[in-house]
């Protein structure tokens, strides 16, 4: 069986976008291209921050067919893994229920099956989760307020790559930062499956002031075209993304 490829963007941010396109709308467009958008909102460890500005975090993930969490930096590592895994499972379950629909001829959700039969479905979902190819684009908000969380972000990504490497399926990951000097996003690490590369990337991170989340998402999604040796991914509907909706400001 060709198990296919799962594509995800993982956005790590600490607040509201304040410039450019509406990230929620961009996220919807990205989901339409078969890429799930997961978002992790990172709170300050001193617990002084008001999490109000972070409601956008949930909205972006929801419209992007992904998972979101708002957490303190000290649990970032486990959160990155949970979010990625759950989003992957969600995608696979969507695929499996389509298959079930073909078998049963009607909309069938796992919970419509007697519990005894669910075990088999679960096994299939787990097998796919272990073996599908996974492409994760990590987009890190490096605006000023994120500065003191960068160490935690680096550790979390490091740890995440370790888990990716344990899987049977292939994986590729890339890392982008936004904002960057004179540009919205900057590629820190092109697609790779080499875990050792993360360490070299992170000292380069420098923080800027604005948070153009929508624009950044919109730009990075194109790079799924550049994943080496992978089934072709076409950014067909790029024109829809490029025009048609306003900015959030």
């Amino acid at each position, binding site marked *: 069986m060709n198990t296919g490829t799962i594509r995800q963007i993982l956005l790590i941010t600490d607040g509201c976008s304040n410039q450019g396109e509406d990230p929620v709308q961009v996220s919807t467009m990205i989901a339409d291209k078969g890429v799930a958008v997961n978002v992790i909102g990172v709170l300050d460890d001193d617990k002084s921050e008001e999490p109000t500005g972070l409601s956008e975090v949930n909205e972006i993930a929801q419209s992007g067919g992904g998972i979101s969490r708002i957490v303190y930096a000290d649990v970032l590592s486990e959160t990155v893994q949970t979010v990625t895994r759950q989003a992957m499972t969600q995608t696979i379950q969507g695929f499996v229920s389509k298959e079930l629909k073909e078998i049963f001829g009607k909309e069938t959700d796992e919970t419509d099956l007697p*519990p005894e039969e669910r075990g088999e479905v679960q*096994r299939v*979902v787990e097998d796919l989760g272990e073996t599908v190819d996974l492409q994760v684009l990590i987009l890190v908000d490096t605006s000023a307020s994120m500065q003191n969380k960068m160490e935690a972000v680096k550790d979390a990504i490091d740890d995440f790559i370790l888990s990716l*490497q*344990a899987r049977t399926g292939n994986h590729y990951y890339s890392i982008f930062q936004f904002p960057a000097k004179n540009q919205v996003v900057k590629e820190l690490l092109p697609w790779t499956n080499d875990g050792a590369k993360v360490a070299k990337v992170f000292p380069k991170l420098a923080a800027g002031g604005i948070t153009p989340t929508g624009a950044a998402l919109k730009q990075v999604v194109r790079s799924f075209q550049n994943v080496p040796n992978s089934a072709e991914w076409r950014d067909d509907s790029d024109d829809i993304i490029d025009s048609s909706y306003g900015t959030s400001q």
Partner: protein
Amino acid sequence: MTSSIHPTVRLNKYQKIRGKWNKRTYTIVRLIGEGARGSIYLALLSQQYVALKISQDSSVVSAEVNALKMLKKVQGQSLGPLLLDVDDVVLGHQTVYAFYVMEYIDGVPLNTWVKQEGLQWLFPASQQLLSQLHQLHNLGHIFGDLKPENILVDRKSKQVRLVDVGGVTPFGRSIREYTTWYDRGYWKLGDRRAEPSYDLFAYAVCLLSMDPHIKIQQMKSKDIEKVIQSATSLKPLHAVIRHALHGEFDTAVEMKHAIEQVNQKQLKVSQTKTSKSNFKMELMGVGTIVTIHFALLYYFIW
């Protein structure tokens, strides 16, 4: 939709949970625990106490039920709690939640037990636990999420029982459920692919965490050797622990034998202690002859 932190489900005392498929009714007694994968309650089925695990995420229930069924294949000694029922319940606004019911183990987590009863309990507990792990490994699976909270000492039988099968993983697969401090990946001492030595690493950290000098959750350093050095009450076990941490035991029985050898040596030393001994004796610390005999007695009964 999925923005809640954990897929926990709140149930009230005396609430009745009636299964949609098997039609059994459970009465909730109290919450036992809440975790990353759901909530677990003490419940009554007629007069019998049971543990009921319910989650917003039905795949959690399916996965753990699969694991519990697999554990049943071990004859004799029961690995993990016995699975009693799997069902769905409709709650509130027609929301369906999957749940499963298992044997309730009236036990004390190993760390609490050791704190109350003394470090000498680590010997019989390790012997038991490592035999159980060995049986599990013989089935081609590892436990994965091994930590003191998941190792219960049954109050009545004093048997060690493993609970929380969410981390059970076939050999060669990636480990999806683990807890930071017990995970060798976190310490940069190995990968997250399932093999017996992964569990043995976790058990070595469990041992370290039971030293009164160690607060594993507060360890800032990722240098495990420093942790070993500060675990001064466990000196006699340092070599075994170090071995396990560096993946040098291939099987659980090897580690079991190594711990047993330390135990034998300790007993000998304690018998000749009156003559002379500069051997670190903290493990036996409060260990009066009575407690040693007590531990030995249990060891032979087990």
